[in-house]
Each structure stands twice: as C-alpha cells, then as structure tokens.
C-alpha cells in the first residue's frame, strides 16, 4: 500500500509543482470561453427553458475542464516519464499493475476536480443555478474524471512521441468534448447529429453533470450514469489488461 500511496502522492506533487500550467491555465481558458460566448449569446439563446445561456454554459465548461485535465494528467505524466526514461523508477519497485493504474487515475481525478472547482468558483459571479442535485454533480465528475484518466493512461503508454499524444488529444478528446453539448443542447441539432450525439459518451457525462445543477437535462441522469459507468468499467478492464501484459512498459 505504501508504494501505491507514494506513487499517488508523487503524481499529485508533479502537477502541483507546475500548477500554472496544469491548474491555472485551464481555468483561465474556460473563463475566456465563458466571457466570450456569454457575451455573444446571452439573451439570444436559451437551451434550457428559464436558464440564461451563461448559466447553462458554466456546468458544461466545468465538466469539459474536468475531462480534458483528467486525460492530460495521466497521459502527459506517462509520456514524459517514458521519453525521459525515468519510468524505470516506478517499474523497478514492488508496485503491482493495479496499484500503478489506481495511482495514475486517482491523481488525474485530483487534478481534474481541482481545475473544475477553479472554473466553477471563478464563474459563480457570472451565473446562477440552484445546485438542484449535488450528488449527481459529484458522481459525474468522479466517473468522468476516472474515464478520461484511464484513457490518458492508455494514450500515455501507447504513444511513443509527443506528436502521437497530441494527435490523440486533438483529434479524439477535443472534438468529442467540444461536440458533446458543452455549448449547446443537443436538441437544437438536426436529427442526424442528434442521433450521432447519443453515441458520444462525453455527451452523457456533460448532460448528467448539468442535471445536477438544474435538475433538468436532455436525457435522464440514470441513463447517463449507466452509459458512463459501463464505458468506464470497460475501459478500466482494457487498461488493466494492457498493464498486466506489460504493454510497451515491460518489453
């Protein structure tokens, strides 16, 4: 257990030491989105009845920040360790692959929640929501963070170069988060894209998370948590299998 705890601590210390880059920058980016889109669209669109656009946008941005930073944490830590070679320091000690997995994913969740909380706190003066169901807010941030943290572990282990990781991030993670209903309700989409959105697990994460704030959403939060949990469990099993086999880590 001590090995696991130390690895978790080290992973948290790692991002904390470069907090400008890992926490403050994503918060600033999200707030810029909020200011710009809020300014342009407030009073023009009302994706949820009775909810101002800025207020609708904030939970989406918080969740997007959570997802992107959970992915960024595990993936960038792993690829840096692989490329600099210091990954051996975690492979030589008696740390099991399950402990390895848990430490990287939990550290991802920690950074994700910190960034999400930062976005939420900075946005509070611009928006108002009833925080209808805080339990759902917590549930979706945890499962969403774990899902993306796990995906980050896979990407970090798979990628041999920063370029490949950037491709994973920019061609998969970014479009899936941006097109998941952060900025709009999927009911405003043409029927085809509405249908397509239901195949995007990120949509369910954002929609369920938003439900926690307003008590209203595009689909039932139970359905969303079901989809997201099944996706997470499948991904976790896949990641654990890769780690057990030593894929790309223990040649």
């Amino acid at each position, binding site marked *: 257990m*001590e*090995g696991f*705890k*130390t*690895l978790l*601590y*080290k992973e948290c*210390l*790692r991002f904390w*030491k*470069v907090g400008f880059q890992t926490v403050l920058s994503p918060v600033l980016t999200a707030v810029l989105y909020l200011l710009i889109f809020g300014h342009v669209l407030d009073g023009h669109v009302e994706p949820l009845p009775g909810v101002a656009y800025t207020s609708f946008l904030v939970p989406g941005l918080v969740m997007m920040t959570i997802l992107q930073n959970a992915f960024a944490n595990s993936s960038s830590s792993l690829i840096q*360790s692989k490329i*600099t*070679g*210091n990954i*051996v*320091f*975690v*492979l*030589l*000690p*008696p*740390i*099991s692959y399950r402990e390895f997995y848990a430490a990287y994913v939990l550290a991802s969740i920690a950074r994700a929640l910190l960034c999400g909380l930062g976005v939420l706190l900075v946005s509070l003066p611009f928006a108002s929501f009833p925080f209808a169901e805080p339990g759902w807010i917590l549930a979706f941030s945890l499962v969403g963070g774990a899902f993306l943290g796990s995906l980050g572990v896979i990407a970090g282990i798979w990628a041999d170069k920063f370029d490949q990781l950037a491709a994973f991030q920019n061609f998969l993670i970014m479009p899936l988060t941006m097109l998941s209903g952060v900025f709009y309700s999927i009911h405003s989409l043409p029927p085809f894209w509405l249908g397509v959105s239901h195949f995007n697990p990120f949509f369910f994460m954002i929609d369920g998370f938003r439900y926690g704030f307003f008590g209203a959403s595009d689909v039932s939060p139970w359905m969303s948590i079901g989809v997201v949990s099944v996706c997470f469990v499948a991904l976790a099993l896949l990641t654990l299998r890769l780690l057990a086999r*030593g894929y790309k880590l*223990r*040649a």
Partner: protein
Amino acid sequence: MKSVPAIRVSGVTKRFGSLQALGGVDLEIQQGEFFGLLGHNGAGKTTLISSLAGLSRPDGGTLEIMGHDVQRDYRAARLALGVVPQELVFDPFFSVREMLRIQSGYFGIRNNDDWIDELLHHLDLTAKAEANMRMLSGGMKRRALVAQALVHRPPVIVLDEPTAGVDVGLRQGLWQFIRKLNQEGHTIVLTTHYLEEAETLCGRIAMLKAGKVVALDSTANLLQRFARRVLEVTLAAPLSLPPALAARVLKQDGLHFTFGFEAYDEVAGLLAALAAAGGHIHDMNLGKPDLEQVFMGVMNQN
C-alpha cells in the same frame, strides 16, 4: 547447507524480432560475490539485467533473486534488488532528497532520512540534497542514481556501467563505497567497459557474446587460462628475422614486433636469438596478461 544464490538464471531466452538477444543463458551468482558481466555492446548484458529487474519479460527460462522468481514472486524479488540503470535518467520535477524519499516510499519505507543522509554522504552529494535533479552535473546524476538504487538496502545490487562519464577522482570514491557494501555482504553485479575496473574489483566474471555466456570463471583463472604473455620490442633498424623467431611474432608494425611466449623463462632465449640475428633493441616492454587480452581472446575464439 548451501545458501540460496543471490541470482539464479536458468535457460533464459529473449528475442526482439529477428535478433536473438539472449540465447539460453544459465548463470548462478552466490551471495556476497563481486561479479562482472562483460561483453560488447548488444551482447545481451542490458537485456539480462532488464529481465532480472522485471523490465523485460523473457520468452523462456526463469530468473530468481535471492530465491524469488522475478515474475511469480515479483514483490519479494524486487525488494531484494537494486538496479543502477545505464542511461542517465532522472525526474526533473524533484530535488535529490525528494526523489530519494519518493523512491523509498515506492519500496514501502517511510521516514528513511537517516539512511538517505548516509547515502548522500558516501556519494558526496550532501551539498546537493536540496538541489533539483536538473541542476546536477552528469557525474552527480550518476551518483544520485546509485543512491536511488540503494534506498531500500537491497542485498543484491546491479550496476549497469556505473562509471561511464564519471571523472577519475569520483570513480575511486564510488568504488570505495561499492566495495564497502560488498564487504558488508551485499552481492554486486557489475557491467562495465573499463576492463581494468572489472579486473581489480570482480572476483568472478562472465563474458557474453550474442546472447550466450562464452566464458565464466574466477578472474584469476581467466587471466591464467586465456592471457598470453608478450614481449614488445622496437628495433633500431630493419631486420629479417630467422624462421625460429618469425614463428613467434604475433604482430608486426614497422620496426615494432610483438612476440608471444608461455613462460617468463623463455624471454632470455628470445632476446639472445634477436641479438644473434644482429638486431639492436631501441625499446622494450614486457606485457603482463590483462583482462583486455582475455576479453579479446575469448571474443575472437567464439
């Protein structure tokens, strides 16, 4: 009763694509030995060490550290092993002390500062304890790697070319420390390209070529068995050697001749024959058998 060997390698094979990195290696290293693992680049030394450390999975065979299988009983095996990697790797996020504390934690040790201080002292790093790893010179990084491999006081220590890039003074200090560890009972396995280091330090040596052990014996026996004694002579003027002398020439480079012989008694005869043929000696040198000759001999033989 014989104690458990520090390292036991049985029939280990490993293939990378078409390259046979290890072709059935058997090796047993007893507790307390100072053991040398020699071979050209690509001979399989690092692959063997990686397999011992669990960084690489062999295709066949088994490896044990202090009786613990490195796959099935990996926790106990890894606790018993300290590895100084060949590459100068470090984590740029942390200071030397932070890094050593973290590494201790990975091995399940809390509050390890007394031992960390001792390591830093012996490795001449005390002044750099709070410095970030990035700020260290190459030699210091190398010593920090040694400290890192020793945080959990492993009974078996593997050093993969630990003195590459370390200057002479510090190299001596490092060896003094490693020798002390060996005297305290730690088993040391060393790979190096500095053959004179291996000759002075190692009690027993294995030579690897193309993934196979081609020589395995005590250093003294290897020197005895393989090394030829040589007489190097530089003549003052060109000379055509009589056949009896020409037969003993191992190498000729202009006026510089290298003669081989078996026992020192033969030297007087050699010199007399040379004088009788009208040769004037400008310079002369008697070569003692050294590990480099043994190494070259073994490598060329196999």
